């Protein structure tokens, strides 16, 4: 009996695209593994990790969501350098809702997400017409301006911030809340981006004049993308407010703007899965490097450069390509 190598996806590709006449458990597994592995992984990890690494996982989920939010904007042709704006607005909204109005955290977080999304969109509405680096500059500056405003006017607790904010019911609620949000956002928005609606968003990045010429008001669509990304970022900030039980000026810090971009770039932009993968690599890496003290940022920067130089397409695109080339032995008569 002769045998030869065959790519696993051969039989699947041979059939008409979209027609799922699956013939074996192997193909079934091949098709579902990309969804199953991350889903199961994220849901099971909290059970095996210790307290410290659970916190790292939580932080990873937050940065993954910020990176997804960044990627959605980037797919629409808006390069944001100000994820910190979304994060900070959500953090303050949830803090105030809980601190002043006594809203339960599990209610305050989603309300703050929507509210933060609306405020982000309204704040950036006037600059939606700006393209490229001009838009980026504005997103970079606004959160830094907000820090100074809070400092100068002493609103919302000024430099002291607001403390004594209610935590989420338990660490398990915390973990599973943010992990299910991550999974829902990852798969939900991936689907959105591959729909006809998502195609319109991506086309704006590709050639905005051509989208306008198709009779589509691109500013309306950009505003929608902004609201989605803003809400997602705000949700992260709102969530962390209840984890820290505190909200203050650091929520507008540059970290929240820069690290998500690094995650998306290292993981591979344009897929959301890449952004998630990037966060899943960079956040733990940053923790591991904590041990080496002062030179941490140097090593961290070094790894970033290596990733980008070795796999400029992003890790996810590389894995995806390899996955489609998986071989198996088949019998030949």
């Amino acid at each position, binding site marked *: 009996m002769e045998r030869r190598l065959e790519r696993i996806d051969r039989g699947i590709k041979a059939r008409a695209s979209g027609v799922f006449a699956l013939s074996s458990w192997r193909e079934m597994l091949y098709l579902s593994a990309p969804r199953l592995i991350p889903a199961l992984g994220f849901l099971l990890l909290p059970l095996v990790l210790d307290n410290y690494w659970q916190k790292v996982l939580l932080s990873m989920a937050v940065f993954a969501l910020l990176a997804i939010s960044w990627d959605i904007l980037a797919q629409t042709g808006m390069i944001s350098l100000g994820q910190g704006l979304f994060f900070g607005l959500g953090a303050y909204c949830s803090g105030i809702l809980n601190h002043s109005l006594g809203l339960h955290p599990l209610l305050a977080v989603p309300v703050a997400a929507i509210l933060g999304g609306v405020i982000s969109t309204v704040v950036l509405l006037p600059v939606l017409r700006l393209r490229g680096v001009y838009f980026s500059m504005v997103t970079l500056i606004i959160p830094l301006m907000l820090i100074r405003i809070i400092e100068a006017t002493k609103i919302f607790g000024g430099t002291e911030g607001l403390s004594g904010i209610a935590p989420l019911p338990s660490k398990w609620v915390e973990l599973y809340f943010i992990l299910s949000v991550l999974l829902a956002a990852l798969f939900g928005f991936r689907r959105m981006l591959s729909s006809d609606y998502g*195609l319109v968003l991506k086309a704006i990045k590709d*050639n905005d004049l051509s989208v306008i010429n198709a009779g589509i008001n691109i500013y309306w669509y950009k505003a929608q993308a902004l609201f989605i990304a803003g809400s997602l970022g705000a949700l992260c900030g709102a969530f962390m407010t209840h984890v820290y039980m505190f909200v203050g000026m650091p929520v507008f810090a540059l970290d929240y703007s820069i690290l998500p971009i690094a995650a998306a770039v290292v993981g591979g932009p344009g897929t959301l899965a890449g952004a998630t993968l990037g966060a899943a690599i960079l956040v733990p890496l940053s923790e591991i490097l904590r041990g080496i003290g002062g030179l941490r940022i140097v090593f961290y920067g070094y790894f970033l450069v290596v990733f980008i130089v070795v796999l400029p397409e992003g890790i996810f695109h590389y894995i995806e390509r390899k996955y489609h080339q998986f071989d198996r032995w088949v019998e030949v008569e």
Partner: protein
Amino acid sequence: MAEGPILKVDRLYKHFGGVQAITELSFELAEGELLGLIGPNGSGKTTAVNLISGFVKPSRGAIIYRGRDITGLAPYAVVRLGIARTFQMVKPFYQLPAYKNMIIPLYSPRVKQMIGGRYGDRDAVALDLLEEVGFERDSQVAYKSASVLPQGYLKRLELAKAIALKPDLLILDELFSGLSLAEVASIVPVIEKLRKEGKTIIMIEHRLKELFRIADRVVVLNYGMKIAEGKPEQVMETEEVKKAYLGVEV
């Protein structure tokens, strides 16, 4: 429908800094007419198209479409009223396969309004439209990325994107430029079919021979000014046009 012109361009002016691109341009267009807009390089043809389609605001003057003043309206709003244009420099979505390029116009409010609901499967409509302009159904070319398509197909794609919008007034900016004679010959029937459907068309062309076979009337621009208007053969006889086109073989 003899209720006045579908489009009336009324004493338009446009200057870019010191460059006077359009000077006192006026013309009318009857429903179902095919107007050729010609003139030497830099005479303001594309600027005229940009003014009508809303991409550029006139310095002075008015554009009246079906009795409604559309001067200064945003380009996407102009499309909604039924005016579609192609770009002289094709503007495909290079990151998408050709047929996915079609999804964007098919997604637009104009199309939704015209078919009074939703497309079931936009991909199928996209492939039909592409076949209409000459993407052979069995050749897979419609599935290729726009970034690898030759100019001939990009021009057809540009046309198909405009047709997808079900326009009443279609403006084609140098559709034939850069195409072989055979390619032009294969697109002419598409335009003739659009005319039979009652669409009003403005064609900007340098390929006068091909244009004159299908145009009802031509307007000639030179240095942003209209120097002649009328039946194709008559217009080419006027002194002004001969001077403007000196050395250009018709």
